[in-house]
């Protein structure tokens, strides 16, 4: 459950919204435990349920994705209550993460934060491993671009390297 909470927090940032997501995922998991095959990794299964709950939330509620200035200031307040890492880094990082599309954010977080293999990540998200690979890579490029302040338009953050 701590890892589920961490993943949810990294997806939606706000503690209360994230815990709602965890709550939904837990309830679904407990309802559907019959579908759980013991040979599967429990965490992967739970993350997959959380992923679907997240997507449902996106469809239902735009607050998961839209990063507007008001929200950024709310977020700043929330972060201020969170001691630890230095403020600018956290703000930048969360803001940059918020600019990634969910399609990029999820695989990046699963691979970096949760340290899943690409195969596990593919299983969680229900996409091919090759797609995981390209999405993680694009997410990295986009995140870096956002942190470098190069991406003003969130929709234009996918910068391909030209070689």
């Amino acid at each position, binding site marked *: *459950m*701590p*890892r*589920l*909470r*961490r993943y949810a*927090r*990294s997806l939606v940032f706000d503690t209360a919204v994230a*815990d709602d997501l*965890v*709550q939904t995922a*837990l*309830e679904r*998991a*407990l309802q559907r*435990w*019959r579908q*759980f095959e013991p040979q599967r990794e*429990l*965490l992967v299964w*739970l993350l997959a349920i959380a992923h679907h709950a997240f997507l449902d939330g996106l469809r239902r509620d735009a607050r998961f994705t839209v990063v507007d200035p008001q929200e950024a200031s709310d977020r700043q307040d929330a972060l201020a209550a*969170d001691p*630890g*890492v230095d403020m600018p*880094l*956290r703000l930048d*990082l*969360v803001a940059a*993460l918020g600019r990634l599309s969910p399609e990029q954010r999820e695989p990046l*977080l699963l*691979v*970096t*934060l949760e340290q899943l*293999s*690409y195969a596990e990540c593919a299983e969680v998200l229900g996409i091919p491993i090759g797609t995981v*690979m*390209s999405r*993680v*890579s*694009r997410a*990295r*490029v986009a*995140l*870096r671009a956002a*942190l470098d302040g190069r991406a003003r338009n969130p929709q234009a953050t996918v910068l*391909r*390297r030209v*070689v």
Partner: protein
Amino acid sequence: MNSTHPHDDELSAWLDGQGSAEQRAQLHAWLLEHPEQAAQVRLWAADRDALRARFDPVLHEPLPEALLATVREGGRARTWPWAQAAMAAGLLVAGGLLGAGLTWQWQGQVNAVQAIAPGTWTHRAAVAHAVYTPEVKHPVEVSVVEGNAAEQRAQEQHLARWLTKRLDMPVRLFDLRAQGFELVGGRLLPDAAGPSAQLMYQDGSGQRVTVYLRKPEAGTRTAFRFQRDGEVGLFYWAEDGYGCALVGNLPRERLLALAEAVYRQVESAIVPGAPAASVPAPQPAPIKPMS
């Protein structure tokens, strides 16, 4: 060595430890010769570390009561308590990142009766386990490992019928061979207000586990639970007319696997009076250092 510029995807995968050893070695060598791209990968690594630094503290936050309650309620099962209890436990320990504080919470809030309390029937089950499992000469009252195969089958049937009659509940001789345990036999025991029974199983290394059976008080219903007292752990549950505990000095996961097998066999519909151990074809003579 491949001198063409690797795709970002490949460098990113390299950073994540993906790909074959050969691919990884090639990319590593390539990065050593291309400092600009290596710097880019280092930035990615820095972003990764920053993400972890930002979100890892969530792991150490106390769990909100609402979430604990969800797991707790889910753990109080309806039809297959063992699975939900196991899952509830799994939810709390997923990834093995459980701190001591959380363990305490789990024990304190989710499962207040972790220790085996004296005077309870699970305590009697644990004591019976401790008393009889070290026994060399007379570990059981009715042995099912003496004589030839036919005699053993006869003893199994006798044991099941006898205990069923005395406990006034259907007693099956559980088949735990898939988990590596062979039935040794069983005995009748005094419980608080009536009889109980103990079935003993042993694996190839001589490790023994026992199943304690009793008819619970009317209306008793206890979801699948785990208790531990020192080295002895037990999984137990009680339903209308049927109380069962699996006791052993084994890691929790192994006990769970055994308890799960017992639970499944209790639940599965069987022909009354046909003990489980007598249903499969006779096995090749088991090696049992029994006296």
